[in-house]
């Protein structure tokens, strides 16, 4: 991952060193039209259509990323020349029309790290549009997969275990299921509380793309760094990114009454503490509560995170493996809750 990040940085430095910050290759007419081009190359987002070489823009990472079967995700933002993103008072990042959030998904030990898919989230005048592209066998271009696809892959997770899965590239609607707020598509990760702009980028470069880059101060801890915050805070950061995109009052899981945003009261029933299953079906695992304080073995939130059965698993899309490290953090968090608080 570091290697590719460096490559992206190098490409960006290259771009920023030139006369034009925005490489002429990005086709803003395509970006801003209603088009759904069959080929990813139509956007001109990469140099030589190499997914490691963004043609323009600035890279970013997240304090807590959405788990997607242990894929390495390489993210950058393309913002049209002369326009800037802006951090609003509530930490939401407002991107101008013509912005593209580009995320490539792959594994370092699959196809020499070449991504399997690249997803675009495009800010058009009509709102955000999500388009999934799967890289062709020859790796030279990627093809639109509106209906999604299962791609067989074998990779090793960080603990050394080998996984052979049929990785699910989401269909266009599934993109929206996660990226939905009150029925409209919105980005998930890029909120000031979670957002880390490429640390190698100069202040000058940051201010090319952001009106107020100083406002980009992440407040959530790095979810997997014990030194970065308490177990509870890191668990909440994890829940915010991995669950709250649906589990909020305007999201796809609004009817559940389970709300897991960083800003939600982490002691309440609506955060799952002592909350009985609603429409959970087999997801309850025979347990009474989403979170039984002090008792992760009887908390069906854990049961659902540790399942890959579609009738049980949470999140419902985007995962064919169990995120052991994430589940371990949440187990620890629940185990450390005083039983009396319930």
């Amino acid at each position, binding site marked *: 991952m570091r290697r590719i990040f460096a490559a992206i940085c190098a490409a960006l430095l290259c771009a920023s060193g030139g006369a034009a910050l925005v490489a002429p290759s990005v086709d803003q007419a395509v970006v801003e039209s209603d088009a759904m081009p069959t080929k990813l190359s139509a956007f001109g987002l990469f140099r030589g259509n190499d997914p490691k070489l963004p043609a323009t823009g600035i890279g970013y990472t997240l304090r807590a990323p959405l788990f997607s079967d242990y894929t390495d995700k390489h993210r950058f933002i393309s913002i049209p020349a002369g326009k800037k993103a802006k951090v609003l008072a509530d930490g939401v990042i407002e991107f101008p029309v013509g912005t593209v959030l580009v995320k490539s998904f792959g594994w370092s030990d699959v196809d020499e790290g070449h991504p399997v898919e690249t997803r675009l989230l495009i800010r058009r005048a009509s709102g955000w549009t999500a388009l999934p592209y799967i890289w062709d066998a020859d790796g030279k271009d990627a093809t639109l*997969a*509106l*209906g*999604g*696809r*299962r791609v067989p892959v074998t990779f090793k997770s960080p603990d050394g275990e080998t996984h052979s899965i*049929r990785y*699910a590239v989401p*269909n*266009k*609607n*599934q993109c*929206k*299921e996660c990226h*939905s707020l009150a*029925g409209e598509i919105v980005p998930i990760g890029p909120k000031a509380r979670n957002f880390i702009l490429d640390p190698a980028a100069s202040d000058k470069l940051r201010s090319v793309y952001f009106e107020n880059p100083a406002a980009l101060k992440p407040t959530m801890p790095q979810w997997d760094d014990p030194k970065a915050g308490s177990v509870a805070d890191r668990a909440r950061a994890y829940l915010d990114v991995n669950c709250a995109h649906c589990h909020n*009052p305007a999201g*796809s899981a*609004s*009817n559940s*009454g389970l709300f897991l945003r960083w800003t939600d009261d982490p002691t309440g*029933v*609506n955060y799952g503490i*002592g*909350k*009985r*299953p*609603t*429409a*959970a*079906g*087999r*997801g*309850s*695992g*025979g*347990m*009474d*509560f989403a979170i039984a304080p002090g008792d992760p073995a009887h908390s*069906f939130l854990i049961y659902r995170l540790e399942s890959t*059965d*579609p*009738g*049980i698993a949470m999140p*419902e*899309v985007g995962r*064919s493996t169990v995120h052991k490290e994430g589940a371990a953090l949440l187990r620890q968090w629940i185990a450390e809750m005083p039983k009396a608080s319930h």
Partner: protein
Amino acid sequence: MRFHGLRHAATLCIVAAFAASPAAAKVISVSATTPDANEKLQEALILAQPGDTVQLGAGVWKLTDGLSLDVANVTVRGAGAGEGGSILDFAGQQGAGEGLLVTSDNVFLTQFAVLNTKGDGIKSKGADRIVYHKLRVEWTAGPKETNGAYGIYPVESSDVLIDSVFVRGASDAGIYVGQSKNIVVRDSIATENVAGIEIENSYDADVHDNIATKNTGGILVFDLPSLPMQGGHNVRVFENIVNDNSTPNFAPKGNIVASVPTGTGVLVMANRNVEIFDNVFDQNGTANVMIVGYRYEHKDPKYQPLPKGIVVRGNQHGKAGYAPKFAGGDMIAAAMGGSIPPILWDGAGDAIVLDKVGVLSLNLPDVKTPQSEAKPSPADLSKGTPPAALPVIKLPEAMEAKVR
């Protein structure tokens, strides 16, 4: 695509009904035998424009991933829900929480079957004016705890019509309408589910002319705490046949329906203004009608746990109460000569029963009192003035036109 011989004729063909106008509604036909049928069908559902029909070919569709529709005013039409029709078979499902998810308004689903999904069958969320018509959702091995939870599952929607569907095997509710308003469920069959039909945390519903048989509980009207929409009210359950709801409860524990006693006809939990009339009840071993408060611990100050303004009238009561499956029920039945009366009330809230049959009260007016302290006795609930009759639910004419 209704004829068998045509199945191989086309893979994904788009037939413009009126080619002259680009905005004209078109029929997008997809064949069950298309290679990558799952992906092609999903693509069709994404590329459909408002007004279009996605036509499902006859045959068995072997699907591995849940489908979804997010375009308003689209019809999804199959070649029938029975054998020889359009059968969406999810036995090999690898992903998604349901077989088909609808998140757009004015959608019409008709004449196909969804079988053996891992989670819910067909879910619609925030999908106003949805029509479910002549559909079959079934777990074909019959009652099993490993079946999906809900068969037909509209939630957070206004104007919902469920008409002439068949649902079997749901490990929660066959037909479940949650957190919705203005609802009609009619002319449908729910069998061998835990709950046949369930109206939960919803306002203004008519449930009529259905058959709820061989479920654990036939028809449930529930209101639960700590949900975005609660205070369920104005539900009419009438002219249904609710019989032989004798399937042992097979819901995964923890879910509220896991507490429904086997042999329940109609069960009202919390809610206000529920009318149960002109139904035919028979062979419900616990009770034909049960009216109870929500007796679990909760921390929701806005929640109202009592049933209020419940009216029971004009129903036909066959045999009931001969095998009451709630704690202590068998002892009460033995003390009463082998069976309890067909109507059971826990004593919380208020109800009026005009049917000329017995009512058993557990005399537990405070929902915090444990059920073990029940002091069962016959009760007369025929006194008092019933609240004004609830109005008929009227759906927008365009919805009714779709099923005519």
